[in-house]
Structures are given as structure tokens and as C-alpha cells.
């Protein structure tokens, strides 16, 4: 059994799909509980009718409901957990299912300028010492797919002589020393005890200082709500024992999630069994997303 296989095994989805759907039914009030990949048809229609804008986007009523009556999280103690994520770039195939799932799960704005997670494609052409980089937000990729809401990379390197190519998934690193939290003037964004950096959207004034301060470009601004946005590792899911949506849908097991307090959790194994790196360590943010297979060109 190779390390990779062990990893996959350990990463087994903790709940059966059926039970998972059942849970969703109960916790429908949680922020954007419309999960991608799993029959989002009806919910999608409703959301669209409500907001009249972006498909999948939570409508204002749903949003208000989620904010005013946040779902109760029974028997969850944030002192007991230390969440972390691993990304194995050698496994990523750039299918972008994670992006799609994230947009739906968290009702992220559907245009290409607002992302909680995205994937970068690095391509070294033969004889070149630097990589060509793009993401789904590249106009050519969007033009090729025909829409910002179809998450695809184009096939632009079909006829090129490619020496090396790989994908790197990006998301908020839920830093140990988050610069976004440091600069927030109101304390609306804060570091939770169990790891994720969260935003209180009822308190955020929308100054976007945090957007400036994040070295990883992980934050965006939700114009319609007037507040900052970013990945929170699907906090509403992980506190119920589920995986973040992106981890859930990743077909190759490129994304690994778990509790570092549990030495046998997928992420603990991932960190123990690999030489892991973090992005931009020189920033001093001490990220909690650990990478395998980074390259000098990765930004």
C-alpha cells in the first residue's frame, strides 16, 4: 500500500451520502446550504426566483434568515479541534469541481472576480525557465467555456510542446497569524479557536482593508452585501462532522481535510507522511493549508 493509497483510505467520506442529504435537510438554514453536485435543482430555482440575479446565489431572504437565526451547532466544542487542510498538487487534474461546489455551497457571487477557492494552472513550455500561469478567471478560459459559471480550463496548450504542467488549488489559508485579522478595524473578522478565520458579516463595515492585507488574494468583496467574503472551510459543515464542500467533491483526493488534534485524521497523516510546504512563508502568516508538490514558480 503506498502512502497515497493510505491517504485516500483515511480520507473516506465520513458519512454516507444519504445521511449527508438528510443532515442538509435539517440544517437548511445554514448559510448557503444548497450543495452542488447533489440535486440542487429545486433549491437553485428558488434562489434564482428570489434574487433574480445569479443562479445558486442565496437570495436576500435566505441570507437574512441565516444571519438572524444562525443554525445551532449541537455538541460542538471549538476547543477540541484544530482543523487543517492539505493540498496534493500532484493529484490535481484541474477539473474545477471544487470551485463549482464552493460557489454553490457558500453562495459566492457567480462572476469570475469573486472566489473563495480557485485553481491555478502552471505550464512550462519546452526550453522555458518560467511558467505560464492562468486560472479559470482568465478571459480566454471564460470565452472558451461560454460562461463564467461553467468552470473549465481551455485547451490552449494542445499543440504546444509542454515540458511540465501542474495545477495548484488555492483558498484561504486560515493563517495562524492572519494579516486580515490584524488589520480589521472593527474585529468583524477573527480567528476562531478551532482554526478557521471567520467574518461576522453583521458587523463588518466593508472597508476592505482585509482584502488589501491578505497576501494570498483569498478575500473578495461582496458588493451586494457590502461586506468582505472569504473561504471559511465550510464552517457550517465542519462543525457538524462533514468535510468542506471542495474536499467532498474532489474526485482525485487532491484536497485533504481533518483535525490535527487527531493524529490519525487525514490531514495529520498527510502532514506526517509528506514533505509539506506552505505558500509565501516569508510573509509570516503561518498558513494552515499545507501543500505537496509546490514549484518555484507558484505564487
Amino acid at each position, binding site marked *: 500500500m503506498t502512502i497515497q493509497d493510505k491517504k485516500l483510505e483515511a480520507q473516506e467520506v465520513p458519512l454516507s451520502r444519504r445521511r449527508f442529504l438528510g443532515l442538509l435537510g435539517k440544517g437548511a438554514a445554514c448559510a448557503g446550504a444548497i450543495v452542488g453536485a447533489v440535486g440542487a435543482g429545486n433549491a437553485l430555482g428558488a434562489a434564482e426566483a428570489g434574487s433574480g440575479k445569479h443562479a445558486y446565489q442565496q437570495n436576500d431572504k435566505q441570507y437574512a434568515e441565516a444571519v438572524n437565526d444562525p443554525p445551532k451547532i449541537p455538541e460542538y466544542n471549538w476547543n477540541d479541534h484544530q482543523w487543517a487542510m492539505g493540498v496534493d498538487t500532484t493529484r490535481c487534474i484541474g477539473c474545477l469541481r471544487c470551485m463549482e461546489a464552493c460557489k454553490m455551497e457558500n453562495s459566492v457571487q457567480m462572476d469570475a472576480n469573486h472566489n473563495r477557492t480557485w485553481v491555478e494552472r502552471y505550464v512550462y513550455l519546452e526550453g522555458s525557465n518560467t511558467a505560464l*500561469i492562468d486560472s479559470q478567471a482568465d478571459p480566454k478560459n471564460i470565452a472558451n467555456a461560454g460562461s463564467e459559471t461553467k468552470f473549465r480550463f481551455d485547451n490552449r496548450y494542445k499543440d504546444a510542446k509542454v515540458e511540465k504542467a501542474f495545477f495548484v488549488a488555492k483558498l484561504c489559508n486560515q493563517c495562524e497569524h492572519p494579516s486580515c485579522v490584524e488589520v480589521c478595524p472593527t474585529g468583524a473578522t477573527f480567528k476562531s479557536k478551532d482554526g478557521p478565520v471567520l467574518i461576522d458579516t453583521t458587523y463588518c463595515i466593508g472597508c476592505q482593508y482585509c482584502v488589501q492585507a491578505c497576501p494570498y*488574494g483569498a478575500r473578495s468583496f461582496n458588493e451586494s452585501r457590502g461586506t468582505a467574503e472569504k473561504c471559511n472551510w465550510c464552517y457550517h459543515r465542519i462543525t457538524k462532522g462533514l468535510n468542506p464542500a471542495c474536499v467532498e467533491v474532489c474526485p482525485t483526493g487532491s484536497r485533504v481535510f481533518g483535525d490535527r488534534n487527531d493524529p490519525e485524521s487525514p490531514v495529520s497523516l498527510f502532514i506526517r507522511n509528506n514533505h509539506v510546504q506552505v505558500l509565501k512563508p516569508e510573509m509570516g502568516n503561518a498558513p494552515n493549508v499545507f501543500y505537496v508538490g509546490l514549484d518555484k514558480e507558484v505564487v
Partner: protein
Amino acid sequence: MEHVFEHVTPFVGYVYPNETDFPWSQLIVIYPYITGLVAGAFVISSLDHVFNIKSFAPISRFALLTALCFMIFAPSPLLFHLGQPTRAFNAVITPHWTSAMAAFGYVAGFYLCLLVLEVWFAFRADIVAMSKARTGIMGKIYGWLSLGSDDLSEHALAIDHKVARILSMIGIPAACGLHGYVGFVFGSLKTREWWSSDLMPVIFLLSAVGSGVGLVIVLYVIVSKFRKTPIIDETMRGLLYVMFTGVAIVMVIEGLEILEMFYKAREGIETVRELIAGPIWVGMYIQWGMSVFALLTTSALLVLNVHGKRLVTWLFLSGLAMMIGVLAMRWNVVIGGQELSKTMKGLLTFTPELFGRESLFTVLIISICPYAALWLVTKLLPPWGEKIEPESRAFDVHKLA
């Protein structure tokens, strides 16, 4: 494809997808610009109040009112920029002290109070005199403004003077603090290569003084023309000295900053070079062109010992140049910093919106407001030290009728 490229900023190279939505727009360009004008105008006013440099006496109170009027509008660009302006006070009620921005409400509030107090002490004698000279509603208003303190004895006036002086003394470090602090908001961000510099607060402060002096010169000349009063040569010479010092130092430090950046040549320096040659080249030309013009003109005025009309014309022009140059510098810093991607492998090109909440139109309105306010305030509190007589009524209902 209906939502494609709704407000995407075009880019070259690779930028993080979220960066295509610009966080800080042109409103954040004029915010440091306006606070800068406040700092500069205040410094001029205190040269007489604190250091007793008599050549500045004729414009000291006018500069003080200028500082006040600009300060009133300094927070407005921020309010227009906030996604949730009604929650602005959250930062004051529960300040998160690790944030450079958290202190803004306090710093600005403190400074505004200080200015209001100083204005009151500097103008109290006039207010009392006017409450006696005016009749009707204006008389009443001046009465209220005097807050019932109508003692004009020598002793009382001496106290006024002393208090105004002390306030002004506190005001100098406060003005420097206010503006150095704005520089810190930018300079302390490690994320952006173009901002993250220890020199940023100093640069902001010095260029603020430069632009503020420029503003006072420009306003003084224009107002004197309108009032048909002579422009005092000695005052202009004094302004010339301050202006020359300001421009010279700020240019050296700005030059040093760029030199340092290129000399260190950290990763991504090619992109910095492309930024200067690309998206902000117009701004860079304006900034440096205007600064060089102001430096050369003021140097020539000094060397050739120019007085009179020629001094007025050229100093006016260099004051204007300084105002434009510093505005361009603010643009280059605030917008340029964001045009340089955090990836250091890409550049964005920002195009401002013309109409809307965060647009050039809003900028225009906000920029006009302080001047309009200044016009009204000088009507209410004439700063030129002329004798107050019943005939020279400004807001007099009798006269209007």
C-alpha cells in the same frame, strides 16, 4: 454570458482572480490628499501662532479656517467607500487596536475638536465684536457663537492668545501624527511591495505639507484678487521658503524610496519596472514633472531674489503645480499599489467609474465641498483682521431685504 466582465479590471500576466475587483478606488486617493491639505494648511497657520513668525500673520487665521474646512470633509471619502457606511461607528465603539485603521475615528475626531477650539479662541474677539455690531438674526448667531463669553479686556484677550497658541502647539504633532498615520495605513501592509516601505509615513507627511502650502498660496492669491487687497510681499516670501523646503525634501525622499526598491531588487522587480512604465506612467510624469517644476521655480525665485508681481505669479504657479503633483502622487501610490498584483507576476489597469457611489463624480463633489465650506466660513468669520463695522454686514437680513 450576461455577467462576464461586469467590473473586471483588465490585466496582463497573472493576477489572483479576486484582484480584478479593485478594493480601493479613487475615493481612497483623495482621502489622503484632503488630510494632507489639512496638515499643510495647519502648519502654515501655526508658524505665526506658535513660532511668532510675523510674515505669516496675515494669512495665519485664513490657513486655520482652511484646515478646519478641509478636515470636516476628510472622512467623507471613507464613508462613501464603505460597503456598510451605517456601521462606520463600529470601528469607534469596538476598535480593534491591532488595526492601523481602528484609530482613525479617534485621531480625526481629536483633531477636528482641536481645530474647532483653536478657531474659537483665535476668533473669539471678533465674534464678540460682531455680536455687538450686527443686528437681527446674525447678531444672535454671533452671540451664541461667543458662548456668552464677551469679556474683551486685555487680560481675557491675552488668555485667548495663550490658549490658541497652546492648542496650535498640540496641533503640530497632531497634524503630523494624523498624516504620518495615513502613511502608516499604507506603509504597514506587507502584502503590497509598492506600499510596504518604512519611508511611507514620512513621504506622506512631507508631501502633505507641500500640497497644503501650495493650497494656501493658491487660495491666498485668488482671494486677494477677488477682495482687491494687496498681496503682502513678505508673506509670499515666507510661503516661498516653506514651499522650497517642502518640495526639496520630499523629492529627495521619494527618490530614495524608489532607488532603494530598485537597488534591493527583490523578486518581481521587473513587474515594478513595468508598472512605472505601464499603468501609472502618466501619473509618474505628472508627479515628477510638477515636482521638478515647483522645485526649479522656487529655487529660481530664491536665487534671483524675486519680489512683487513676478513672485506672486510664479509662486502661484508652483503652488498649483505642487497641488497637482501631490494629487498625482496619491494616485500613483494608492492605485498604483493595487495595479501591481500581489503575485508580482501581473499588472492591472484601473479605470475609474464616471458616475455612481464610488466614482469620479463623487470625487468631484467631495473635492468642491471644502472650498464651498471655506467660502461660507470666511463670510461668517472674516479672517483678514479688518476692523469690524456695522456696514460690512455679510449675512445681514436687513441688507438682503
